[in-house]
């Protein structure tokens, strides 16, 4: 292996120490947004600069890294961040959820239950759950400090008044450890229950907004709701068209211009694993190579 021209995991050691201090504080106060001196990264804001900095700060040479983007391991964001750390930290990378020790994610939590030896790092665009209701940062900080979260329910109220049910389907606000209301990043609300009492440490990094927050392992995470309109997971009418899973989060894929579509697992590793075990969806051809079929 060639000596890398970069410091281990790109960031210099002082920066990583600064980020680790923020992470420790975030773990000590679950759900609280800790400000940190976010650095310029060699990628645009919105591409996961916060998550990348958190990952860089916690990564060790022995770690195995997995990066997912909307559940998939093979999309641009996932591929380039994986390549970034393979190059700058020389760590082993994987697409397997079970093998990974650090998983950086954009907008999904893997279907497979995480373990205590894993850390899940979220990329967060807007860390403030109250932002769209209250534009003033001074005011939202006061509201967090005093635990004034009535406004969050106003948003859910508006949903029910307009759509007859809580229509918020991603970025669904949660209360962490009975105290702070937190934005779980734009994961589908399907994934919200996975955050509760999770074995793995969950870290959230927002690069542009310069905030880090965390859910320590085995922390109570409750999705906000009303007594008469309780929180509900999204449900799907179909099983996965490739692996037949009925308990996973599905993506809709348009297959032609005549209204044809298929529903497949958004978690590609989970879907491939199931197919390897012999599960078959109704659109999976005999040869995996010939699976465009349909119609």
């Amino acid at each position, binding site marked *: 292996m060639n000596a890398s021209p970069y410091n281990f995991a790109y960031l210099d050691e002082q920066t990583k120490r600064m980020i680790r201090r923020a992470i420790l504080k975030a773990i000590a106060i679950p759900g609280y947004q800790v400000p940190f001196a976010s650095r310029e990264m060699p990628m645009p804001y919105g591409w996961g600069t916060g998550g990348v900095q958190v990952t860089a700060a916690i990564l060790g040479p022995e770690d195995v890294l997995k990066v997912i983007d909307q559940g998939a391991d093979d999309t641009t964001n996932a591929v380039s961040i994986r390549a970034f750390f393979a190059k700058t930290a020389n760590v082993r990378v994987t697409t397997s959820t079970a093998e990974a020790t650090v998983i950086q994610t954009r907008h999904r939590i893997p279907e497979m239950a995480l373990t205590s030896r894993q850390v899940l790092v979220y990329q967060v665009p807007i860390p403030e759950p109250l932002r769209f*209701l209250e534009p003033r940062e001074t005011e939202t900080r*006061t509201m967090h400090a*005093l635990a*004034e979260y*009535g*406004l969050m*329910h*106003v948003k859910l*109220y*508006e949903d*029910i*008044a*307009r759509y007859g049910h809580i229509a918020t389907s991603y970025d669904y606000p949660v209360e962490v450890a009975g105290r702070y209301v937190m934005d779980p990043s734009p994961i589908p609300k399907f994934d919200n229950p996975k955050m509760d009492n999770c074995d793995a440490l969950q870290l959230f990094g927002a690069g542009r907004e310069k905030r880090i927050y965390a859910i320590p392992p085995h922390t109570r995470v409750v999705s906000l*709701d*009303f*007594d*008469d*309109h309780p929180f509900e997971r999204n449900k799907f009418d179909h099983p996965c068209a490739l692996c037949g899973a009925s308990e996973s989060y599905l993506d809709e894929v348009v297959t032609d211009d005549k209204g044809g579509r298929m529903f497949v697992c958004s978690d590609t590793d989970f879907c491939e694993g199931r197919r390897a075990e012999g599960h078959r969806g109704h659109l999976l051809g005999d040869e995996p190579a010939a699976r465009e079929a349909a119609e």
Partner: protein
Amino acid sequence: MSAEPNITPLLVATGLSKSYGRRMACEDVSLSIREGEVLAIVGESGSGKSTLLNLLAGRLDADSGQVHYRMRDGVTRDMGTLTEAERRVLMRTDWGFVHQDAAQGLRMNVSAGGNIGERLMAIGNRHYGDIRATAAHWLTRVEINADRIDDKPTAYSGGMRQRLQIARNLVTAPRLVFMDEPTGGLDVSVQARLLDLIRGLAADLGLAVILVTHDLAVARLLSHRIMVMKGGHVIETGLTDRVLDDPQAAYTQLLVSSVLAA
């Protein structure tokens, strides 16, 4: 003065002063108000009446002077010693504040029901059906048709917005409501209807109201007592009818005589 609890004042202010740089906006003002009483503060623009209202409501810090308020538990507290958390709880439960510009007092991008329900949710109500029923009840109470519950205030007329703002404030049954020119900018017939509504609600609910207005007719119609201000000082106080029918101070006489006869 008798020791009966129900006549101890709800709010007592003593020696309130506030200056903006070298300009005194409000100097050594003292007042008290009891439950069920409507006190009007009148004066020309720049006389310090809005500053005084903001001082009383804790929206501005006074340079000197104190405000004491009898809390719901019967204990009278110095407002200056409340923690911010206590003050904010007080402001959204036991107090109301009606702004002249409804856009300041309402969330314009949230439906009427959400606007009324916000205080309920803030104090921990988590039952959608109850919140909505209460919101509908308060809409009819302020003479807005309950089928407008899902409309945003942007779709409301000026008078309706003002009534919605009042409903939003009254939903937690406050005992003291501050009003800053509640009828300002409304046309005369809408004003009359709103005044009628405020008078009825204040009487029914036994509200204490501190009302700032430059309109003597509004003060006459709503208030029991009146305070005339000029240049940050209180010129004259007394029962509304007495002050308006028989003004003692030269400035009050000028003010009363400059009202156009209807």
